[in-house]
């Protein structure tokens, strides 16, 4: 009986976590833009601008190109839903998963990919040249990202012998040495690279571009409008937020709640919000400093990160 109760509590914590993330996601986008603006010497639209955009988009009537199918209607929802599920799966506020749905990294990744696929199909559905282009590039990148992700995951999970995120995080918290260990560092760096690639940030993709031929993510959503666009945007921001949170918890595993008590959960919320905001700011600064890579240089970047991950694995073998 009591453990059923425990499960319910855990579930509530998860829902809280999701809510926090949803609320935070547009802000994160806003923060990065604002930081960029400031560093570039512009005033910036304020960190809440993305929220306003969402509200505006939700109020509009969607417009569809001729010959589009149910995919155009469903894909945006699928994307946002997958992001929400990920937000529920990753240990951000509390490292205390449901017993039936452990926060298994492979599951997390595959749910992310579900969103990726939805986006790619969305790009193809309208039958315009750019949509296909973006979709093709997007899939190419995620195809090359996947090995790196799994390798990084593998490296991180070797010390624990399991791919359960909460275990990994708590383990790193309990033995900080492993954070600084070569394996840990390499793995995290690799992970950061793939997060950038997967969420379409510089240097892989420029979210602020208006030139179709350089687009990846933007090209896919060219045909998307109104609430569909809102869902897509929210979904993508949510992914960014969650992944940043994950990286944060991996690098600085302190503050996360291990059991749902009234004391630890708020602390966990504060901790994760803080981590994410900091990382978002860092990201903003970094993006000012970086230029976008040519599309066919991207594989080199990913190969590099793959190498890092592989080294991480071998390193962890050496230390283990």
């Amino acid at each position, binding site marked *: 009986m009591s453990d059923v109760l425990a499960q319910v509590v855990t579930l509530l914590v*998860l829902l809280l976590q999701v809510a926090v993330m949803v609320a935070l996601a547009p802000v994160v986008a806003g923060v990065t833009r604002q930081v960029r603006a400031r560093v570039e010497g512009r005033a910036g639209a304020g960190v809440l601008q993305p929220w306003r955009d969402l509200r505006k988009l*939700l109020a509009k*009537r*969607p*417009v*569809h*190109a*001729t*010959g*589009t*199918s149910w*995919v155009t209607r469903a894909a945006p*929802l699928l994307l*946002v*839903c*997958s992001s*929400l*599920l990920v937000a*529920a799966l990753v240990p951000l506020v509390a490292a205390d998963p449901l*017993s*039936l*749905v*452990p926060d298994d990294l492979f*599951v997390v990744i*595959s*749910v992310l*990919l*579900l969103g990726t*696929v939805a986006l*790619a*199909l969305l790009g*193809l*559905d*309208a*039958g*315009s*040249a*750019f*949509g*296909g282009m973006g*979709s093709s590039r997007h*899939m*190419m990148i*995620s*195809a090359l990202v*996947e*090995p790196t992700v*799994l*390798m990084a995951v*593998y490296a991180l999970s070797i010390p624990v*012998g*399991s*791919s*359960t995120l909460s275990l990994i995080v708590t383990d790193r918290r309990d033995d900080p040495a492993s954070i600084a260990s070569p394996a840990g560092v390499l793995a995290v760096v690799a992970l950061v690279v793939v997060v950038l690639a997967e969420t379409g940030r510089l240097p892989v993709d420029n979210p602020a571009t208006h030139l*179709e031929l350089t687009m990846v993510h933007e090209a896919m959503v060219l045909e998307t409008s109104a*609430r569909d666009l809102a869902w897509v945007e929210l979904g993508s921001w949510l992914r960014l937020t969650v992944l940043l949170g994950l990286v944060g918890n991996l690098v600085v595993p302190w503050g996360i709640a291990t059991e749902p008590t009234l004391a630890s959960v708020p602390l966990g919320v504060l901790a994760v919000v803080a981590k994410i905001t900091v990382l978002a700011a860092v990201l903003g600064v970094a993006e000012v400093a970086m230029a976008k890579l040519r599309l*066919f240089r991207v594989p080199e970047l990913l190969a590099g990160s793959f190498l890092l991950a*592989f080294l991480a694995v071998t390193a962890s*073998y050496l230390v*283990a």
Partner: protein
Amino acid sequence: MTLVAGGLLAQLVLAALAVVLAVSVPARRRALVAGTACATLAAAGAVTGALALGGGEGELRLTGALPLAPLVLAPDRLGGLFLLLAGTVGVLACLYAIGYVHGPAGSRSQWAALAVFLLGMQLVPSAGDVVAFLLAWELMAAASTVLVLADQARNPAAREAALWYAVMTHLSLVAILAGFAVLVGQTGGTGYGVLANTDPASGAAGVAFVLLVVGFGAKAGLVPLHVWLPRAHPEAPSHASALMSAVMVKMGVYGMLVVGLRLLPGGPTWWAVLLIALGAGSALYGILQASVASDVKRLLAYSTSENVGLMVLALGVALLLRGYDVPGPASTALIACLLLVVSHAAFKTTLFLGAGAILHATGERDLDRLGGLVHAMPWTAAAFGVAALGAAALPVTGGFAAEWALLQSLIAGVRPGDRVVAVAVPVALAVIALTAGLALLTFVKAYGIAFLARPRSEGAALAHEVPVTMRVATLAGAVLVVAVGVVPGPIATVLARAVGIAGARPVGLGGLELGGVGAVLDPVALSVLGLLVSAPVLVLAAVLARRRPRVTDVDGWGCGQIRTSPRMQYTATSYAEPLMRIFDDALQPTRDVEVTHVGESRYMAASVQYRQRVDDVVEVRAYAPLVAGANRLADRARGVQNGSIHRYLGFAFAALVLVLVVVAL
């Protein structure tokens, strides 16, 4: 006479009946009658398989003319599993064929061959001794060759494919026969039970293992023995392709399982390493070729090569870890292997049936000429989509569950300090990862280009939904794909019992708990959680949808220009272009660009033609020289028979003198 024995007997009888009907019934009714007969045969196989899988015993014995041990049909649990697979896929394929076959594919010989093919595939896992196995194996090979030849009169490619297939499959037979013969030479018996007495450490066992792996690999389409696969699958009628790809190819995997688990358990480490290497190679090469293929059936064929590679890799990992007695991960890898077998059977059947439906509806196999089919054939689109998810190993399909289990076994299979594992496991993981990524791209391409966007050809524009039996079969396949993904727990448990291991037990609502590695996957719970967290969004979306309806029928964004034609869309080829550039060295495409200039001008081009073809590198680099060399040798050898009686007498004279010297000195 037990139920299983009865089932085996029933299959033999039904097969004979089906052949008779196929030959005797007039063309008008043939599809229905023969198709039903074949379906019944397959169903009998499925039932027998289920019984055997459940532990039912029973055997048929047949004493042949030669003083060998009698032929034995006695499926064990593992055999029962594959028999069940063959039967299930067979039922779907036959059902589909009733609506599908037309023209030469519906001839007497084709239907008869289908019946024999089904029988062969159902006897292979039932066989209990070498001779019976080879007998069934050859029935399977011969019948499938006939099926590949369905369209031979009009289509030269079919003839060539059949020839390649016939030779490669004979290679497989020869290797298997040799391998078994080595074992028989060691143990003196032809029954599996006796063969199992071989000492795996002996050199002979090693020889036998390599021979058998080559033989079964050739059938399973492992690189570099896969060359027949991308030729034969596209040419065969789609229900035959489905059977060949989903079941026949698996028989090669079955053979390896029998060898690795039943005949030669506990072999040396290099066996496992060999399997891992072969599997990894096939997986990578197969998916690479698939990702750049634009003929949908060729794409599926290469993806088969990939999936078989993963299965063999999983088996290799299992054997490897067994060798280092880490039972948990080892058994997990084995379960993963079997899960891959099952899920691949499900989704590849659906995909091939779907491809057949496309062919049936549009007359096109080339993705570059398809598009927009989702409007014309929604059912097929749905089924194909689900199966594509399975092929891309996304939740919640069987493909995902299988790959997840495999990764879990690798994660847990860490053995610090041991060099072989320390190298093999990470490499295996990397290969799986890259494969998964490319598979994702491949099937997004296949689905998106074929079913979404606007038609790229006349045929695609005039497409229509296919007859009901075809739809039913395809959708049933899709249902299986999801079923395996939703309730992996019970299924995995049964599979584990089929190979006599623990390590998987059901948990929650059909969830799977891998005891060996302490990992849990409950797709139902996962989906529920997903729905729960996304409920608000969905509600909001629904509300908004009612309040603010959509505006449709406007032109897509054409970079400012208004008129956009379907020819401006991305095609399958252009979709894979970035990948092609990256893996240029591995794929070695042949490109040629023809520019015709305006008059004298070197700057103004009247037209530019760009052609790109991707040949199978292995075939070009390895097989073509081999064939050429053999032909050259043969041409030189003709000199032996140059018509001069003096030369002939010379041979005889030399032989005489030689013999005299040998016998007398």
